[in-house]
């Protein structure tokens, strides 16, 4: 992730102070594009230091398993940009695509909260159907 260095250095920052992680980004630089792969979502890999596209995609899949009706079955995380809001929680600006969408390639943006668990990242908020009601 482009912001890894920033967030590592600021890992102790809590709550509202983490805003700097977003506002201090170099907005002029082109946004790195990353797309999750099924392989990344299923392989056993070391827990990432900060959430990234594969970990968020995997966490979404876990959440969907627990409550299928609250989650889409056609959602692919496209990009993620995370900043810390505590030692184990991250606030992420993400974009995603939906293959069954009637629009042509609508790239959605939202925010999610990720929490580092014992052996995996957990999606704590965001990306639930009904949260983003216009979609």
């Amino acid at each position, binding site marked *: 992730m482009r912001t890894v260095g920033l967030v590592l250095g600021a890992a102790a920052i809590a*709550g*509202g102070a*983490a*805003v700097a*992680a*977003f*506002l201090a*980004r*170099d*907005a*002029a*630089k082109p*946004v790195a*594009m990353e797309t999750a792969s099924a392989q990344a979502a299923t392989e056993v890999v070391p827990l990432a230091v900060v959430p990234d596209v594969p970990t968020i995609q995997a966490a979404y899949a876990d959440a969907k398993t627990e409550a299928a009706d609250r989650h889409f079955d056609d959602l692919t995380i*496209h990009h993620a940009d995370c900043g810390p*809001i505590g030692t184990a929680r991250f*606030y992420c*600006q993400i*974009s995603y*695509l939906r293959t069954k969408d*009637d*629009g*042509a*390639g*609508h*790239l*959605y*943006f*939202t*925010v999610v*909260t990720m929490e580092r668990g014992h052996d995996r990242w957990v999606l*704590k*908020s*965001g990306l639930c159907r*009904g*949260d*983003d*009601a*216009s*979609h």
Partner: protein
Amino acid sequence: MRAVELVKAVAVLALLFASTGTKAAPLPEPQVFASDKGVLDILMVARAAPIETFPLFKPTGWVYDICPRPKDGTLACPTKPAGSNLYGGSRLALQPGDVLKVRLVNRLPKITDSEHAKEKEHAYLAFNPTNIHTHGLEVSPRFPTVDNPTYGDTVFVMTLNPANGELPPDAAVHGDVRVGYTDYQIDIPKSHPAGLYWLHPHVHGIAMNQIGAGLAAIITIGDISDYVCKNASCAAALGRMSIRHMLLKDAQITKDSTLIDQEDTEFCQKFTGPPPATPGRGFCKGINLGPHEESYVGGRWYFSLTGVPYPAIRMKNSAGEIWRITNTSSNATYNLQLFNPKQNRDMLFQVLSLDGIAVDARGGLAAAAISGGRVTAVPCPGSPSGLEHKALCARSILMMPSSRAELWVVDRDANDKVVKASAGDQAVFRTSGIKTGPSGDHWPAIDLGAVTFSAAGSAKLPQVLDVTGPSHDEIPARVAADLARANAKIGANAACKPLPAGHMRRIFYGLDASDPNFLGLGYEEVDEQGKAVPGTFLNISAFDPATPTVCVPLAAGNKPVTERWQLINLAAEDHNFHIHQMKFGVVGDPQVEHGSAATNGILVDNVPLPHTDGVCASVAAWRQGKCKAHPVRVDLPFAIAGDFVYHCHILMHEDDGMMARIRVRASP
């Protein structure tokens, strides 16, 4: 890009006069940001800033701090000089075919007054998310794609200020969520009509609060000379006129200098109380509403022109001035007049455009109520033969929220003829005060500005300015052609069926049928006999961002398709109808007794909907004849694909739910 800064001296003078209260401050022009080589690329920071133009008070408002977009990616504009009047607003000067690029940064503080932020699922509104809508522009409301991750003119996105906290887990947001900033790219069609438009936030639930606190800017496309005075003699006169841009703004300030963004329409006058004896100069005084209610004593409700209450408007030439007026108030309706104290009557002025579209009625204007009751036409005196039927003059103009009008204001004699001013000729620019129905609001009478006419200049004065706008019938087709690529990208939708020939859609305005604490819109389709089509009725309900009420496919080849809608206000107060991405014509309705009649070709983007006679709490009550409604019929030329909204532009009503989502799709 060229940024034309305000003349500092004028601003300083404005502050000086405003603070002393001894002499009217001059009316300032908004700061201008003009496109260059087809592009206007700006950083727009929504933030808090002191309002320095109100006498006695120095409240904090919310402003757009605009600058050319820094190349290094900085998300702040350079510090503005003191007296920059950010609250007064800015003007984005564009040309047809331009690209408007905006990086919107949210640096707003948390919101404390919002009623809707108290609703559990909307608690996130307290974080004060924001967005922008380019009001009146016929542009694509497209969403981002991987290839172009910017937004078009869509309201289904909001930007959070991350300093205000993280989004709660159960937030029922209405579209995309962005943190920190959002990039917009608005492609202006080459065929876009020249005229006056504006830009404002549109987050459902707090649109009133944000606009009421000051967030607004105006947009001009092209130049006045694109549609006014295209013949040589008239053009010479136009060249001598000053062109002013006025933002009508209001702000309620308590005695401790706090701006109330949750506006209270009874601030100066109780609902049942008598109107004040004489209009205040730029404000009315706060009152005590009662022992168990709010007391606004010691406060003032300011009604300013471009941020300055009761400024001096001193003309520089006997040819008069063009006034380009935008009602950027969140709720207030104005009934604008130009009172001549010598003649003890309201002066005549020529209306050049409404809602950004030139008043060019090639078939002739009816000398009756036009444009949905916004203007009562008066023959323009002294006009050359043949021209009088094309010119629209009036003594007052109704400006509900979001309305725009361009007026030619010039000195006139007792017979309404244009004359060279004599020394001391003056007028008072005012809103006469208006009550919007038995359950409506009192909008106070306020003297808005002091006008002094000029005797300078010796050239012969025209009696009427020639207005030559675009052919209204051709605008939708040209816009659709210019936006063909964007429309095609939206794609078709098999579930989207055309309205059968002879049918129309009926929209109800009223109380939410399931919760009368909210307002809403209802819907049904009506056949050629005027009967409701079974199975189409949707009772009045508050805004549902997830479910489009209407889906309209464009015609074959993605050509425009025109639908007739009937708008029925069931409330005992006036509402208005506004729809994004288009202009529409108001057509005569045999049921209309007042308030609406044919536009005769005038296109608008908002129209008043008169209140009922009697009370109807529901559609069923209306069907039973328990009240008499005054329907307004409009012809809507759909030319732009995408998802957008229609709503009441009295923003406390829109925030209360009086809005619906519409979907327009490419032809199958």
